[in-house]
């Protein structure tokens, strides 16, 4: 379901005062974060800074200690299964290594949500699966393969195709380019931009990859010391925080090189 254009700048994800802690270790210390409709938000942070925990909290796989998370204006904590399902159908998640079901072919993987949540007859499902495969740039033959027979890049694309099966409004990506070679990573960035333009979804992306951030993200949220700082590369580059300084010095170096 594509976004109606009149709600272009409404908030899709609204996080207020989020606290996550494992034992005594505080991961998120009262975080506030908004994700706007139609934008690509890149989330960065050091290892253990709680990027994945944040993502898992939003999609309901992790229960935060306190705070509120609203997706499409609906609280995700403590909702009943039915309401949660309503949300789940409006978002798609690409897990780090695709998380494809290993006993099913790529086609069957893509058709899992279609089979569960729509009344499509099998021939139409086969056509739709083919459309999704071509959208994510996989050859038709890949549909017959099992996840173990795919390369890392293909697995990510297949995972993306499954995440896009119900044409979600919101897409969660967990390190979409990790483990890919730079060329495959650049192609994935391009694919993401193309799909975003044609399907019009909002993206919440956890990543480490500076190139991906530069090429796809509209806004960046940095998790550092349990807090979050948002901005663009241009503004964050001037942030005094030592971690942020160190992180973006690579960009600065490259900018200097290309000048």
């Amino acid at each position, binding site marked *: 379901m594509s976004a109606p254009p009149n709600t272009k700048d409404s908030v899709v994800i609204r996080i207020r005062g989020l606290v996550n802690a494992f034992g005594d270790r505080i991961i998120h210390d009262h975080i506030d974060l908004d994700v706007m409709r139609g934008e690509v938000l890149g989330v960065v942070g050091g290892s253990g800074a709680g990027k994945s925990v944040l993502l898992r909290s939003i999609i309901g796989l992790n229960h935060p200690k306190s705070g509120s998370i609203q997706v499409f204006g609906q609280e995700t904590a403590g909702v009943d299964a039915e309401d949660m399902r309503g949300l789940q159908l409006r978002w798609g998640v690409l897990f780090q290594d695709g998380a494809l079901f290993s006993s099913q*072919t790529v086609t069957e993987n893509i058709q899992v949500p279609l089979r569960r949540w729509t*009344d499509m007859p099998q021939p139409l499902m086969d056509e739709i699966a083919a*459309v999704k*495969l071509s959208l994510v740039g996989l050859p*038709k033959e890949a549909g017959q393969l099992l996840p173990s027979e795919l390369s890392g890049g293909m697995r990510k694309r297949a995972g993306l195709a499954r995440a896009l099966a119900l044409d979600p409004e919101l897409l969660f990506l967990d390190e979409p380019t990790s483990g890919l070679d730079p060329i495959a990573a650049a192609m994935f960035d391009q694919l993401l931009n193309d799909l975003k333009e*044609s*399907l019009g979804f909002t993206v919440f992306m956890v990543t480490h990859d500076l190139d991906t951030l530069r090429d796809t993200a509209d806004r960046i949220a940095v998790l550092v010391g349990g807090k979050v700082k948002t901005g663009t590369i241009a503004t964050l580059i001037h942030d005094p925080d030592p971690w942020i300084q160190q992180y973006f010095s690579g960009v600065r170096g490259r900018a200097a090189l290309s000048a």
Partner: protein
Amino acid sequence: MRNVAPSIRVDTPATLRTERRGNAVRVVAAGDWVTTETARLDPETRNIATTGAGEAEIDGSGITALDSAGMWLLLRMKYALDAKRVPVKRFVVPDRYTTLLSAVEREGLVEPVTHKPRPHGLNYILERTGKGTVLAFRQGYDMVGFLGRVTVETIEAFLEPGKELPFPGFINQIEETGLTALPIVGLLAFLLGITLAYQGADQLKRFDAQIYTIDLLAVGFLRELGVLITAIIVAGRSGSAFTAHIGTMRVNEEIDAMKTLGLNTTELLVLTRVLGLLVALPLLTFFADIVGIIGGMLMCDLELHITIPVFIREFKSAVSLNTFLVGMIKAPVFAFVIALVGCFEGLRVERNAASVGLLTTRSVVESIFLVIACDAGFSVLFSKLGI
């Protein structure tokens, strides 16, 4: 089983209408052309009446929402009309969906994905039987090889002065496979003792020979049942754990990491488990023997009115030390079989989740089979030897 979520709401249901204007067919699409609506639209879009028409037009300007599945249906209509020599002169979707249109259109007429046909028929049955047989033999061959390797490593570990047994791992295994199994082994042996005493007494009552229930219980438990029930529980409990643990380590590349660090995987993973179980299973068997006979003794006391002192006196005359030893001597053999099969299957796990489950199942089935087969072998052996 279909279960369409009430939560996928469609604001304006999708509609499809065809009009004729001279020799032109005009297909008018409106409403929400989205994934949930496609099941309903699918047959309608396949049957557009075109008799006598020379050209066509697809007008989607009334569409309020469109996603890639809906776009596919519109495009499929266009391709179908074109193929029927009713060329589509005009194809309109709202402006905001033109990028989606070009994305779905880029590939042209995509063929539906095909599924690999599921094989069937006589040939397939024969092929499977043949494959299974070859696999079973190869597995047996490999297992003998593995047995040899473990034996050599075990002897080396004891004889070579430079080598040291991984002692903490060994103790840990005894705890995992022995100590923590005590409650379940005890409970089952106790229940088995009760059952055996009760059933035996019921039959022997007919000959007025209830006192021989004690003989039945003592000989049955010490020679066969105690060790067999223990071995079966341990195969289900620890054999499966060995396979699943080693298998998961393989999936995580931990075994490869150990190899590159120059560690001896057989010694670290297999030997600790084999030796641990070699100690634990006889101890468990001894425990099961005692608890089982106590269970039988209580049953005799309560139901048959054979008091405990009478029971003990009769028990002494019924069994000799040999009866006990015949049972006990099997325990280390069973332990070796269970640990060997568990580790062997674990090391054969491939790098996917399904493989761990498959081989764990196989490990349990194989070790229980081998335990019972060995037991039968022992019975034949002892009867030939006259023990």
